[in-house]
């Protein structure tokens, strides 16, 4: 009846097909160094997509997604090392653990009316509580962590060839984008963005905010936990300091905020931009040691984040979308 959004035209279709072909063909042309980089970049894109469902759509600006990440990594890894359960199955158990943890957090947040910045702080607290627990829990590896064996066992998500990891993570990115796309056009998606904008107005308009928050955080957490399983399988080593560290958390948030929170492709664009930038910086012939390069990189991240928040609140993609919307309105 009403044609509100234009259908994708042929130009978009051609671009999409080209992009898919390039992404799938990449392992054939990349050497193992760049393939590792590509896997890592895709993993951060995936995790940004997961965080986006919570922070970008529902306005649940979590600083505690590493808790879900760790839940996934530890659950599947322990199931594999202790009980020989394949991580392909352990991945779902990890997702369940992540979702359970998210439900507990969401229920408490609603019960005690923890919103906005206070919600962010509460999620920091969750991570800060989890870290010493894992650090001192010797039967799950304590602070030294857990090693996975280096072997080729596709049935256990262990590969010698990096290309297989690449296809697994690219598949996960595709799934996360599909899930985001489906949620965005569903009732749940509309309700989530309404809560993000104004929770009271949303409730008065019929949005069951408690349920929507629970669902969005649980979905986001379950997917994040799957990323944790992949991380463990790819790097073959997990440790509280790493999986519960600030770096993975910041990368999820930065990727999303720079690319465009509350959009399907934004987190991918943003996190890829960061991965490329990080690599370019390390390639510059300045002769920095890796430690110095890492510090400089953080500095640059910080500056970019502040600049984006000040001048591009919708992120790279958000800016494009709004410009297009305004243009369409102007034409009308």
């Amino acid at each position: 009846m009403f044609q509100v959004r234009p259908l994708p035209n042929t130009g978009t279709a051609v671009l999409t097909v080209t992009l898919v072909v390039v992404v799938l063909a990449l392992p054939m042309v990349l050497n193992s160094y760049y393939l590792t980089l590509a896997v890592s970049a895709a993993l951060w894109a995936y995790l940004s997509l997961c965080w986006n469902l919570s922070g970008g759509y529902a306005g649940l600006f979590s600083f505690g997604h590493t808790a879900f990440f760790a839940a996934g990594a530890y659950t599947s890894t322990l199931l594999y090392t202790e009980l020989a359960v394949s991580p392909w199955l352990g991945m779902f158990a990890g997702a369940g653990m992540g979702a359970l943890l998210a439900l507990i957090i969401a229920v408490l947040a609603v019960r005690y009316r923890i919103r906005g910045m206070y919600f962010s702080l509460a999620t920091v607290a969750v991570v800060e509580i989890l870290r010493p627990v894992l650090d001192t829990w010797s039967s799950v590896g304590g602070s030294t962590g857990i090693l996975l064996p280096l072997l080729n066992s596709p049935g256990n998500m262990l590969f010698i060839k990096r290309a297989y990891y690449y296809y697994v993570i690219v598949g996960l990115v595709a799934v996360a984008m599909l899930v985001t796309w489906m949620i965005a056009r569903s009732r749940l998606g509309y309700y989530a963005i309404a809560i993000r904008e104004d929770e009271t107005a949303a409730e008065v308009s019929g949005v069951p905010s408690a349920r929507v928050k629970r669902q969005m955080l649980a979905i986001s957490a379950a997917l994040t936990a799957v990323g944790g399983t992949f991380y463990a399988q790819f790097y073959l080593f997990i440790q509280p300091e790493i999986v519960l560290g600030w770096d993975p958390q910041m990368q999820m948030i930065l990727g999303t905020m720079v690319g465009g929170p509350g959009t399907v492709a934004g987190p991918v664009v943003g996190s890829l931009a960061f991965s490329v930038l990080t690599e370019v910086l390390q390639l510059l012939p300045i002769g920095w040691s890796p430690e110095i390069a890492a510090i400089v990189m953080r500095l640059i991240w910080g500056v970019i984040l502040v600049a984006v928040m000040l001048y591009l609140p919708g992120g790279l993609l958000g800016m494009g979308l709004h410009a297009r919307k305004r243009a369409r309105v102007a034409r009308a």
Partner: protein
Amino acid sequence: MTALRIEGLRKRFKGLEALRGVSFEVADGEVVGIVGANGAGKTTLFNTLSGVIRPDTGSIRLHGREISGLAPHMICKLGIGRAFQITRPFLNLTCLENVTVGALNREPRAARARERAMTVLAQVGLDDKAEMLGRDLSVSWRKRLELARALASGPKVLLLDEVLAGLNELEINEMVRLLPTLTTDMTVLIIEHVIQAVLQLCSRAVFMQAGAVLVDGAPNEVMNDPMVIDSYLGTEREC
């Protein structure tokens, strides 16, 4: 039939008793103006009716069903819609998305809800702004968006909190002309300071002072009541 029966509604905020035993009934299809000076408890009354705040004691029945203390989204589902005094559009959503959120109450499928939202946008004259963001609207358009979002949720009882405030004379006239066409078959409660609008729109007026209903009757009688005039203009003694 009685649409709304309010009995002995009380609400205390720390030292201030905002509502001290408000009771009145609204019949189906009635358009009731709620008038009174600032601080009389009008908005607090709306807040308790829409579930944003919980009354300390008292009862609110919507078509016989007790709703006081229910969550706002449940009350919305049961048929009370509300437009806020200070408009609260979802700033980063388009007009269409704003209204779709309300429409999803009656049409769980997003595609159908968007169609319903588009129809409502057309009714309030915002259809050409469907793709504009809430933040890009002027005050007068925001008022209409607020109204559209409430209408799209399919209310039986509509609460309008100063939808005319901040509008110029031309816009007020337009809104006063528009409102009755939008609210046919609905029971409407209107908080309004523009007396002329109350006289034109309402079949009855309720005058509140210090958290209680003081005068209740035909709009022109209420507006000419000495107590009401006193409260708005002050007595001669005080001047």
